[in-house]
């Protein structure tokens, strides 16, 4: 940067030579401010989503830059929400990027007082083994009158109201096939 450019970039010079002698506006504007733009404008992609909190179903737009969510805001096209969000919906970016989010499997051994780490693959495998053991232990083939029961009451599940229909479908399908009857969610609560 030459002295000349430096001087010309000096707000005092701009005050003296430009339209803003009091140094309130154009003269005082910094280079950063002059090139500022909304990060939603430069996002790599936008996903059209739906708020994960209550059941109103407000439309959301999720802006992504470099594989990171940089903004979540209301979708103005939505006939339900007209682009608006409540405080919870507005906090969606903080929800999905929260530093408190757990991103690794945690395992608590029986009688342990602390968590341990566990590999995801191993965890799923261990869970599968425990399901099979619980079924084996508690399977009911038929009732007293010999009518089919095909079930285990040794396995329970709770949850689904925050999940997708496709997920609930697979959950119900798999649990039903394994004879696990005690499947419940918030709709009961």
């Amino acid at each position, binding site marked *: 940067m030459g002295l000349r450019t430096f001087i010309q970039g000096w*707000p005092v010079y701009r005050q003296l030579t*430009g*339209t*803003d*002698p*009091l*140094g*309130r*506006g*154009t*003269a*005082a*504007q*910094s280079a*950063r*401010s002059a090139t*500022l*733009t*909304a*990060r*939603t*404008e430069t996002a790599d992609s936008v996903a059209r989503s739906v708020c994960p909190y209550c059941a109103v179903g407000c439309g959301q737009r999720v802006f992504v830059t470099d594989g990171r969510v940089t*903004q*979540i*805001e*209301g979708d*103005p096209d939505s006939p339900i929400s007209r*682009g*608006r*969000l*409540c*405080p*919870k*919906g*507005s*906090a*969606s*970016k*903080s929800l999905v990027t929260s530093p408190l989010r757990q991103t690794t499997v945690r395992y608590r051994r029986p009688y342990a007082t602390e968590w341990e780490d566990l590999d995801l693959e191993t965890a799923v495998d261990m869970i599968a083994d425990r399901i099979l053991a619980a079924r084996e232990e508690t399977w009911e083939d038929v009732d007293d009158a010999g009518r089919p029961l095909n079930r285990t009451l040794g396995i329970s599940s709770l949850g689904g109201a925050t999940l997708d229909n496709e997920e609930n479908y697979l959950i119900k399908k798999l649990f039903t096939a394994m004879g696990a009857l005690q499947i419940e969610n918030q709709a009961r609560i």
Partner: protein
Amino acid sequence: MPDANSLYGPLDPAPDAGWTDARARMGFFTDTSVCIGCKACEVACKEWNDVPGSGLDLLGMSYDNTGALTANSWRHVAFVEQPRPAGHRTPPFAGLPTAATVSAASAAVAAGTADDTGTDPGLPPGDPVAAARMAAGPEFLGMPGAQPPGRATGPAERTDFRWLMMSDVCKHCTHAACLDVCPTGSLFRTEFGTVVVQEDICNGCGYCISACPYGVIDQRRGDGRAWKCTLCYDRLGAGQTPACAQACPTESIQYGPLDELRERAAERVATLHERGVPEAQLYGHDPADGVGGDGAFFLLLDSPEVYGLPPDPVVTTRDLPAMWKRAGLAALAMAAAAVAAFVGGSS
């Protein structure tokens, strides 16, 4: 070139600040009569502007746990509970076995709470008496005639009640003292007529904080710089609505060209007056007021100070010429005294 009203009086501020290609002046009209106090504005603002947390303390100021506008809260929703009538509405507690109201007493207790907002000066404690008066019925305020006839709330029992909510924000004054006193040019007037702190410039001198007649701008601890609402300058540049206004579920916060908003606000007040809400009043809409009108103005249902707003703010620069004159006189006096001291005496 600077306008004759450059320091005081009605003015279109962007051209005055050198914007030969100024855009229409943009602003907020916050209609508190439809505010539901959801605080979406507070959160949406924080999400967009990456504003840090502002304390995890229960303030007991009704549902307000933010307390004030600070460097870490650029929108602040005020909550005021009052045993007073709300427009034409049926008194909610009429006929119930109620005793005296507690709003004033609870408010007085809440005046003493504190929150670590992470800013300076943040949220200083308040005066319990003034707090009580804020939350009291009309008989406390000594404002006879402010209530519709036949709605007087006796001291013995409470029948009427209203819960005022109001989303406060930087006023983006026509004559912005913060901007004018800023010695670095960090605070500047944008082409939209808004007032923005440039975070790459601010050196945290704190002058703007004392200059603001609304107590808006504040200094972030650790960071040292002053922060406040930018009216989402970056979004405006992209033709977008500021985050708070976009989120607001009930259109309490309306964003748009200031001229349009002022018209809309006038109509709204007229409608409310027709519907039996005589207390509806505009605040900060008048270009002839002490700050030349606010870029963010409000429809209020009570006196401004009840919401924490100054009733008649005046920009400090109104008196600036007089101040410099006095300073000049003082300087002359000082020089004269010095000269006299040396030439006047004998020893």
